[in-house]
């Protein structure tokens, strides 16, 4: 059924349709509306046979989810930013134990400096923990991915993070098509655990594993992600057959067939990128874009196929490998192993800075002329940076950096973009 609703609420409704049995919640901007929505549904008894637990920290949230999942029930939680870091030990634990927990990440920057706005630094910090990571372009895809995520997680016995851009998607009202309970039930069968804490058949879960077997256990989780490379497109195809639309999958290409310049990005910025691609195409540019839907497992082969004939690739990242440049770029480079083309990393949108059509147009035009640096910080205020570096070279007691920069920029409220 078509609805105009907030992204978080759409996701909450979709999760409710997946018949979760335990949901744990700890508030953090910008995911809070999701768990609040679910909490309401449980309290109003719209979502039945579901326990909703208000926990005292994110670490507790994922811990409760681990206990519930190990006891054999479908489990869900959500977090962002600092909260994801606070539960980091449990994130690795859940993956190591092979528990099919689904968790939404309302992507938000990690501090310091504290920042509540969107970028991908949070989910990127956990990219190697063993969770599958899916990124949504739109709120429709965000809700669809959660349905696919439970299916994927339970088939593989591997936890799945569904990443949606904080504020940009979570707090955006847009049109979505909400599936029916029957459609979801047909796609997502009841959870059948591979392991379960049950007095009828006792097992010990979580024992220490020594040098004799640790590598093998790790290899098996690596193998799981490799299997996911096949399973994700299969489940997306099945989703399309059942629900009638494209959602999910490893990558999505846009006008790349004869493209000389291809832009690669994750999440909602792809919408703006596609608008710019259309405008530039109309002016004669041979440009296209690729949206990476699955960041873990990383789709090396599909990316290689999509990019190999281009002259240059621009990787547009909402994250930063401090001191190095791009994170997504590393994966893209791996996929292009042996193929020679120009690769550019663009760090954009950090801490919620708007990525505008105008900036992207200038950027892509520079790329077309190969007039880009290896690593570019989009819309960097060079004056502010120079001033701060100069100040630091003159004085020892410079005070907190962030505050100094804010003073230079002036009041924030008067800015639009």
């Amino acid at each position: 059924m078509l609805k105009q609703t907030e992204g978080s609420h759409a996701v909450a409704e979709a999760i409710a349709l997946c018949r979760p049995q335990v949901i744990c919640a700890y508030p953090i901007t910008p995911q809070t509306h999701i768990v609040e929505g679910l909490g309401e549904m449980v309290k109003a008894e719209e979502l039945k046979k579901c326990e909703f637990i208000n926990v005292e920290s994110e670490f507790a949230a994922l811990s409760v989810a681990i206990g519930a999942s190990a006891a054999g029930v479908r489990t869900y939680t959500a977090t962002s930013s600092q909260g994801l870091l606070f539960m980091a030990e449990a994130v690795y634990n859940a993956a190591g134990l092979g528990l099919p927990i689904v968790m939404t990440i309302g992507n938000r920057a990690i501090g310091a400096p504290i920042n509540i706005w969107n970028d991908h630094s949070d989910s990127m910090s956990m990219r190697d923990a063993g969770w599958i990571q899916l990124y949504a372009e739109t709120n429709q895809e965000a809700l669809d991915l959660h349905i696919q995520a439970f299916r994927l997680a339970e088939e593989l016995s591997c936890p799945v993070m569904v990443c949606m851009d904080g504020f940009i998607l979570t707090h955006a009202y847009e049109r979505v098509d909400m599936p029916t309970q029957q459609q979801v039930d047909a796609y997502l069968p009841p959870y059948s655990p591979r392991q379960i804490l049950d007095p009828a058949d006792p097992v010990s879960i979580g024992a220490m594993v020594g040098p004799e077997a640790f590598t093998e256990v790790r290899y098996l989780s690596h193998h799981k992600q490799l299997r996911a490379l096949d399973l994700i497109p299969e489940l997306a195809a099945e989703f399309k057959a059942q629900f009638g639309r494209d959602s999910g999958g490893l990558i999505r290409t846009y006008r790349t067939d004869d493209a000389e310049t291809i832009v690669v990005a994750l999440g909602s910025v792809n919408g703006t990128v596609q608008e710019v691609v259309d405008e530039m195409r109309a002016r004669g540019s041979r440009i296209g874009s690729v949206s990476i839907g699955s960041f873990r497992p990383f789709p090396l082969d599909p990316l290689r196929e999509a990019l190999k004939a281009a002259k240059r690739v621009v990787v547009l990242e909402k994250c930063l490998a401090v001191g190095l440049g791009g994170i997504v770029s590393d994966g893209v480079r791996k996929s292009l192993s042996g193929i020679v083309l120009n690769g550019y990393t663009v760090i954009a949108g950090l801490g919620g800075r708007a990525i505008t059509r105008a900036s992207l147009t200038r950027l892509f035009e520079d790329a077309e002329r190969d007039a880009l640096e290896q690593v570019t910080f989009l819309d960097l205020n060079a004056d502010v940076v120079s001033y701060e570096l100069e100040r630091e070279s003159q004085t020892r007691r410079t005070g907190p950096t962030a505050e100094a920069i804010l003073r230079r920029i002036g009041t924030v409220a008067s800015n639009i973009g």
Partner: protein
Amino acid sequence: MHEQDQQIKFYQTGTFTVGNRLLAENQRSVQADMHRTNSLNSGHRACQGCGEALGARYAIDAAMQATGNQLIAVNATGCLEVFSTPYPETSWQIPWIHSLFGNAAAVASGVAAAQRALGRPDVRVIAQGGDGGTTDIGFGCLSGMFERNDDVLYICYDNEAYMNTGVQRSSATPPAARTATTPALGPAPGNVFGTGKNVPRIAMAHRIPYVATASVSNLRDLERKVRHAMGIHGARYIHIFVPCPLGWGSAPADTIKLARLAVETGLFPLFEAHDGQVTSSTPIRHKVPVTEYLKLQKRYAHLFGKEPDLGRIAQIQGMADRNVDDFGLLQ
């Protein structure tokens, strides 16, 4: 089952016996029962004389009997978890999960929630951990579980330090005790006076349905408290005193004796509390001076010798005397 229909005199049973032919069958300890579940089976790798292994076996077998063997255990990282599951073996005969160090209470809350979601109210959950995993790193999750009144019995096996990592000080380490991070050096040797957390009292402050302290020196009391706890729904906490021969520098054969001395000095009061109020305490039969207890442990050796540290010993005695007063342990 829970009420005594036969008065037991101490001289009839002693405390060295696990079961006793003089008692009615239903008053014998769970450990005396041939059909006890041995939830923590033999073959684990605990040290000789480990109080925690003893306490865990007593407690979990009692809980199994009380729940008709419908029990799931969640275990924090620590000695118990490590010695009970030496790869590739496990000595647990019940469903058991090792959580992380600081989240046994939260994982247990999740397991309990799952049972409700599955419509299985008969399956009960115990979370267990050492003092480190309970009073320090696990404190946040513990308080959260208490505050929500989740249906979990949390058992803390208190050997008064981080033993598995090499005897480091925790907030349960008593004053003056030597540990690797509170060495017996300098003008204030051993652990500092005026620090530490009393988690049973903190549990009581959460007004949870049941809090109790117990000791491996009193098997029946321990079993009774566990059984009583399993008859209650909601958050419950039992704090069990478990000597550690290795960490305390005591003789392995002295474990139960030390546990009894800790009770009889007043240093470890045995009591129960319901809904935040103390409802009973176990009287001390013959009060013993703390030196009798302290001198058996090398971790207090620096208090003795040619020039005993009378000041510190007196402070420890004062703590014991205060407990006796607070809980009315001398009748």
